[in-house]
């Protein structure tokens, strides 16, 4: 755990801030909750895109799937789903606290697990694809997913599902969902931090740097890809379940499968902070969220244009991201050893080591 110790101080500061934030800034609980959601988004995207080099444009599928599974479980435990959705919210649900939380807990667990199932199935189709085909394949599936759900009457089609109403004080509800997203974000971070320090972490980096070499060395590439994708899906699925409840109403295109908003935010945030690093996505998500919240409403309809320009500038001129840039500038602070005079002389040295002349 020695190498984790450098994360201790920033980690503790963030934890303390995370616990205190909703009490210090009670008017911004929702914004802070979304911040944690964004951090989860960026972290889970980076597992695939940054650490493994599989740039998915369709991770939002898991978010939406989790949201719908959670909703269906929460409703289905006590009502007939078909009747409930057909009534378009006319059925008023009065859950007791116990019913509500039973549904919520089961729903979130199922959301995570079912997203994993989808990831394994989805992966078996797209993992034979590399590079651009993978990105386009995932983008296509994400676009179609919303449309298919929107045509499925049993789950409310385009009119969506009203989520069960929290049977208590609205302020408590806000805190509940804040802390759920907070815990989820922190858990995702800690889980990934430990994961990246195992053999798994290096193996997916190897797939990113040279998949053909990784295959030639016998790494179980497909197994690693499926597991990485499943881990992303698990946390995203749960986040979808929580967000659905927080939103109170879910529908396929804008809430559950928002490919061009949340789906693209994931990518932009990771790139902005520095993909393939542990803190990059966290930093990127935080910056992006703050800047977006501050400027969004003042851009008067041009915000999407600005977002598009941000993507282009980020990708074309600043792809290494903030952390990546810092690593290039101060490599020694990140424990990277650079030797200035790598060249012919060192060949000589190595030759001497090999023939035993220069030993010692």
């Amino acid at each position, binding site marked *: 755990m020695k190498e984790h110790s450098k994360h201790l101080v920033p980690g503790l500061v963030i934890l303390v801030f995370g616990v205190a934030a909703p009490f210090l800034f009670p008017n911004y609980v929702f914004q802070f909750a979304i911040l944690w959601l964004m951090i989860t988004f960026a972290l889970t995207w980076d597992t695939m895109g940054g650490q493994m080099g599989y740039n998915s444009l369709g991770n939002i599928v898991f978010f939406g799937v989790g949201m719908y599974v959670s909703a269906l479980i929460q409703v289905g435990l006590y009502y007939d789903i078909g009747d409930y959705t057909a009534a378009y919210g006319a059925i008023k649900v009065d859950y007791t606290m116990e019913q509500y939380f039973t549904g919520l807990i089961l729903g979130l667990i199922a959301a995570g697990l079912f997203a994993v199932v989808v990831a394994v199935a989805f992966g078996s189709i797209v993992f034979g694809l590399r590079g651009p085909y993978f990105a386009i394949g995932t983008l296509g599936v994400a676009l179609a997913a919303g449309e298919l759900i929107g045509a499925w009457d049993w789950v409310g089609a385009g009119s969506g599902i009203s989520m069960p109403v929290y049977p208590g004080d609205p302020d408590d509800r806000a805190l509940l969902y804040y802390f759920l997203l907070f815990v989820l974000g922190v858990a995702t971070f800690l889980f990934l931090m430990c994961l990246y320090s195992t053999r798994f972490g290096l193996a997916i980096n190897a797939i990113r740097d040279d998949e053909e070499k990784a295959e*030639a060395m016998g790494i179980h590439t497909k197994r690693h890809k499926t597991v990485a994708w499943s881990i992303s899906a698990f946390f995203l699925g749960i986040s979808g379940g929580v967000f659905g409840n927080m939103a109170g109403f879910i529908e396929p295109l804008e809430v559950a499968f928002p490919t061009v908003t949340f789906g693209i935010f994931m990518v932009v945030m990771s790139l902005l902070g520095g993909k393939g690093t542990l803190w990059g996505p966290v930093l990127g998500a935080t910056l992006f969220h703050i800047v977006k919240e501050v400027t969004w409403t003042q851009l008067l309809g041009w915000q999407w244009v600005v977002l598009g320009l941000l993507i282009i500038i980020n990708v074309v001129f600043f792809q290494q991201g903030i952390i990546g840039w810092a690593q290039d500038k101060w490599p020694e602070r990140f424990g990277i050893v650079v030797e200035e005079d790598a060249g012919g002389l060192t060949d000589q040295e190595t030759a001497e*080591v090999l023939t035993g002349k220069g030993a010692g």
Partner: protein
Amino acid sequence: MELIEVSGVSKSYGGVVANKQVSLKVPRGRITGLIGPNGSGKTTLFNSIVGYHPIDEGSIMFEGKEISHLRVQEIARLGLLRTFQQTRIYSKMDCIKNMLISVPHRTATFRDMFRPYSPELTDKAEHLLEFVGLYAKRRLISGDLSFGQQKLLEFAMALMSEPEVLLLDEPTAGINPTLINGLIDRLKRANEEFGITLFVIEHNMRVIMNLAENIYCIAHGEMLAEGTPKQIQNDQRVIDAYLGAH
């Protein structure tokens, strides 16, 4: 028993025949060489063995098992590894990480994926780096190494994953001549001390004559001659093939 047995393998690209009815044997525990002029189909044969493309006809057996339909990873996990002519390492990582990635994946179970690297593995990685003379550079980003050192690193990575047999594609091509003797010595020692069977494509005659116990010579995609270094050196057909008088 023969470790690798290639019999009657043909491979053509479009109309160009790269290998025609090639047969050879790589005995266990030995160093076998494969030589031939440029474009004679050596690398094509290598790629057929390790699974980079399908073969048109023939059979390739590894430890008595047909492998000509398997894919690269599956063949690698049987313990048949190759190095690349244009060296391939993970150039953004340091040498130690390159080594650690190369733990044997043959025996890796699902749970092994999530194990941390034990101190023993790090020790082993450092030992092997020392073996190839790169210990002093273990923390250096591998892309900053010279080409010869990268070849040595790739060789060490292959050793790390404990293969049965190692297919080396021109191990001395393009490296600094001062490194060649050291490399030959390490290849021999890997064969003797770790018991790894070697199958080496080589262009440099001096190297292969020093290294291999048995040599195959291929020309125009067809097997031309087989024998000990001495026999090959004195074989008129081999000399003709190399001088272009065909």
